[in-house]
């Protein structure tokens, strides 16, 4: 049962979860904020896909890019109008704000579009498969893996080679010190929110490719996945987010194969029991961070 198809599908799921977790952890690393409105960015991406493929004459790739941009700008916009004003107050204020932003965006979708699920038309390639070494693999999964690889490379180049990227990593180590070197706090935080939005936008495409529908609450399950993956991998490290994403996917896939059919519907329960065990023995997650606990104040 653990064959090439299983491996590729698990890698694909892991790639998706890794992108999800990265988007959440890049903001958390700097602000110590778990952005509960992150799932709604995925929803925004989804509705952009729905609106533009349903009515517009645009080519599909352009629609995908616009969906990613929509998620990115929503992310930047929520930072500007919602998080920035309360940033200096307290972490709790930011956390509550993120719930408020989440509820606001969900209700906006309910009001403006519909509480009912909307079908998203995806291009042919998402429904077809490709033969790899005698195994039929959905193109969707291959594309997910390739996209996440590309994003990992781009993100690594940004974080290691550019001054802004180095500043982002420095800010995760010690935000105040980074500012004392002349790096503007707003630039660093906006960049983190932009990256988070881009990740959410990309994820929205592949997440929706699995179900072909979008609903106002579609952001909740991926938010949970991202949160659990970062907890597994370690909230303080980008590597941890990637590792956590893949571990989460591997465990879910393995449980799917190993559990007897009668217990399959309790797969998530087994999954979370595993997470609890991990946390009991490695409370900081699999990848530990060397840095001290500090937050923007």
């Amino acid at each position, binding site marked *: 049962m653990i064959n090439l198809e299983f491996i590729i599908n698990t890698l694909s799921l892991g790639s998706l979860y890794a992108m999800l977790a990265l988007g959440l952890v890049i903001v958390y690393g700097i602000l110590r904020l778990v952005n509960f409105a992150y799932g709604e960015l995925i929803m925004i991406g989804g509705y952009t896909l729905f609106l533009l493929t349903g009515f517009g004459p645009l080519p599909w790739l352009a629609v995908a890019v616009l969906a990613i941009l929509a998620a990115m700008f929503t992310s930047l916009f929520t930072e500007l109008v919602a998080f920035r004003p309360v940033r200096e107050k307290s972490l709790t204020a930011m956390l509550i704000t993120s719930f408020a932003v989440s509820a606001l965006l969900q209700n906006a979708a309910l009001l403006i579009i519909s509480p009912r699920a909307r079908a998203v038309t995806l291009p042919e390639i998402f429904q077809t498969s490709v033969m790899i070494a005698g195994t039929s693999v959905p193109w969707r999964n291959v594309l997910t893996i390739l996209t996440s690889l590309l994003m990992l490379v781009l993100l690594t180049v940004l974080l290691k080679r550019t*001054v802004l990227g*180095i*500043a982002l*990593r*420095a800010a*995760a*180590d*010690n935000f*105040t*010190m*980074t*500012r*004392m*070197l*002349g*790096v*503007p*706090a707003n630039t660093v935080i906006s960049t983190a929110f932009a990256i988070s939005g881009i990740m959410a936008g990309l994820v929205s495409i592949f997440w929706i490719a699995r179900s072909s529908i979008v609903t106002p609450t579609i952001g909740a399950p991926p938010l949970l996945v991202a949160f659990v993956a970062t907890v597994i991998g370690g909230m303080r490290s980008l590597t941890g987010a990637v590792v956590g994403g893949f571990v989460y996917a591997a465990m879910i896939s393995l449980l799917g194969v190993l559990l007897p059919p009668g217990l399959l519907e309790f797969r998530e329960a087994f999954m979370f029991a595993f997470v609890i065990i991990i946390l009991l023995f490695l409370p900081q997650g699999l990848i530990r*961070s*060397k*840095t001290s606990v500090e937050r923007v104040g």
Partner: protein
Amino acid sequence: MLELKDIHTRYGAITALRGVSLSVSQGELVALLGVNGAGKSTTLVSIAGVLRPWKGDILFEDRSIAGRSPEQIARLGISLVPEGRAIFPSLTVEENLRLGAFTRREKTEYSRNLGEVFELFPVLKDRMQQPGGTLSGGEQQQLAIGRALMSRPRLLMLDEPSLGLAPALVDQIFELIARLHRRGVTILLVEQNVERSLEIVDRAYLMNTGLIESQGTPQQLRTQTDIEGIYMGVRGPGK
């Protein structure tokens, strides 16, 4: 160059500075001395914009900088090496230095400043690709000062640079500060090592419980004040 006028700063409900006035002129090496909790570090972070004074004014080159953000103040050329060094442990030495030069990124200037930092701290050159967190305490202090120098600060503020270092390294750090001073760098130094500081500074301020108690040249201070009491740390706050 730098002038503090009646600065009051609070940490939450605690008043840490109760009217601090001091000045540093171009090219001067000035020390801020006193026991733990006297408000020395608070004075430095107030200048750096991390804490906002609720009363008083801070002038840097005749411009008021009180209430500006840390990044704005850094851009004016004020650089703080905070207590505990605050290097970025997960960044390599090179990345630490590169960020230090954030306000001076122009290529030729960057390599010139890097060259000077290597000349002062040759060990950093061998450690370029190592994460900052893997350096020894003395090396981390060198990295922290080197990072600050990468911005060619007009005013360099050092908070307890000798703290936690082995005696041989303490000598090196004080020698280095004197050397930077001879090169014309304006320095405001916070230290608990009163005796060693008085050997190298032009002037010093003695702080106690959020106030400046006395000031003067090392010679004046030695004759006027109960240096011994501060040096030994036996005199309690409030006297």
